[in-house]
């Protein structure tokens, strides 16, 4: 930057006035200004502009009282914010460890009670049907799958949709000509399923045959019984018989 043209120099005049050029650049600009009146006037104008701005700024009123009041209010607000901060409140809460231990013990006791309640609920056996709770539950929800009712004349009885395949089994179990009778009890649910089957009487057949008979009955499907238009679960009894009728030949 030994020989500056006016156009190039003017790009640096702002930095020159602010004394923000390198030493080499400052020297080059000063050398140019010594011989160029136009650029020197430009520098004077920039410097004069700075003076005018600074003078305008010093003319503005400075309400020190208001500024001080605002400052005090800010400090007070910052202090209030700090007081209310979570960190400060937490540290204050842990200042007295007696309260902390009591709170921890209470929390632990509450947790233990909750665990006990859940455990009792989980481990307790089902309600017996003949207990007071069982009776109340049955009265509260008669005809539910859990508390089926007996069929009476006011109900529409269940109708078979899918017959159980029991005839062949009964014939199989009848090895002699004696009569065979099986009585089975079960519940026909509100969905028409056969659940909780049990054998009331079996006059013939081995254990396996009886089991197959029970399974066959379980696979039957019904349209459920209904009371006042609403489906109800009912207790039912099946009696399956195989009777041999002997005739006499009349000669």
């Amino acid at each position, binding site marked *: 930057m030994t020989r500056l043209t006016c156009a190039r120099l003017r790009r640096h005049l702002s930095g020159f006035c602010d004394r923000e*050029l390198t030493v080499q650049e400052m020297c080059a600009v000063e050398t140019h200004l010594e011989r160029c009146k136009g650029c020197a006037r430009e520098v004077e104008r920039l410097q004069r502009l700075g003076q005018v701005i600074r003078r305008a700024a010093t003319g503005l009123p400075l309400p020190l009282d208001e500024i001080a009041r605002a400052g005090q209010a800010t400090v007070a607000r910052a202090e209030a914010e700090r007081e209310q901060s979570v960190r400060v409140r937490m540290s204050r809460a842990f200042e007295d460890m007696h309260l902390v231990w009591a709170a921890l013990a209470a929390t632990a006791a509450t947790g233990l009670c909750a665990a006990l309640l859940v455990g009792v609920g989980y481990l307790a056996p089902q309600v017996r049907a003949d207990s007071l709770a069982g009776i109340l539950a049955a009265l509260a929800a008669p005809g539910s799958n859990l508390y089926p009712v007996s069929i009476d004349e006011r109900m529409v009885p269940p109708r078979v949709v899918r017959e159980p395949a029991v005839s062949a089994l009964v014939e199989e179990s009848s090895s002699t000509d004696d009569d065979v009778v099986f009585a089975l009890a079960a519940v026909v649910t509100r969905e028409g399923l056969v659940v909780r089957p049990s054998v009331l009487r079996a006059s013939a057949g081995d254990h396996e045959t009886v089991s197959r008979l029970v399974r066959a009955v379980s696979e039957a499907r019904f349209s459920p019984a209904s009371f006042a238009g609403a489906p109800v679960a009912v207790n039912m009894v099946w009696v399956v018989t195989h009777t041999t009728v002997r005739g006499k030949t009349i000669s």
Partner: protein
Amino acid sequence: MSAKPAAALAWTGVETGEAALIARCSAGDEVACSDLVEQHQRMVYQLALHLLGDHNEALDVSQEVFLRVFRTLGTFKGQSSLRTWIYRIVVNQAWNRQRWWRRRRQGDQVSLDEHVRARGERAFRDAGPAPDRLLDQKETADRVWRALEQLPFEQRTAIVLREIDGLSYEEIAFSLGVAGGTVKSRLARAREALRAQLVDL
């Protein structure tokens, strides 16, 4: 004509006393907070007033600035002097306020003229009993503020920080979060625009 990005600067401008004050403020010492406010409140108010041109806004911004200072003092790592760091917060708050202001409350602005009328001129009032000179100075000041108000915010900030607050390019770059070269070009453009408006001064 070197231009360094502001972020690359490593300043160690925090003095021992200032560091102690910062530590006490961070620990929540109310007296230290009061001291910090007392030391910088005048500078903060004046910069906000010069940038926004409104007394009430400047007071509000001053309060916001110090609240922000107290909330974020823990993040101050001494990469600049505390004063320059506060300058940066003032500029950011003033910029936010100006944007909000333009959208919603421009009609409520109390101009510097009204502020001066309400409180009188400080230097001019003390300048002596020459009424002609007082009037000239007032008119000149009015023209200067009008010209500054018409500058884009970035240019106005650069020229105010340089001419009124006397910050170096490096400090201005940190306060504005820009590179030194950007400061230089903003100052040049601001001066050019001001000279065009104040050509006869």
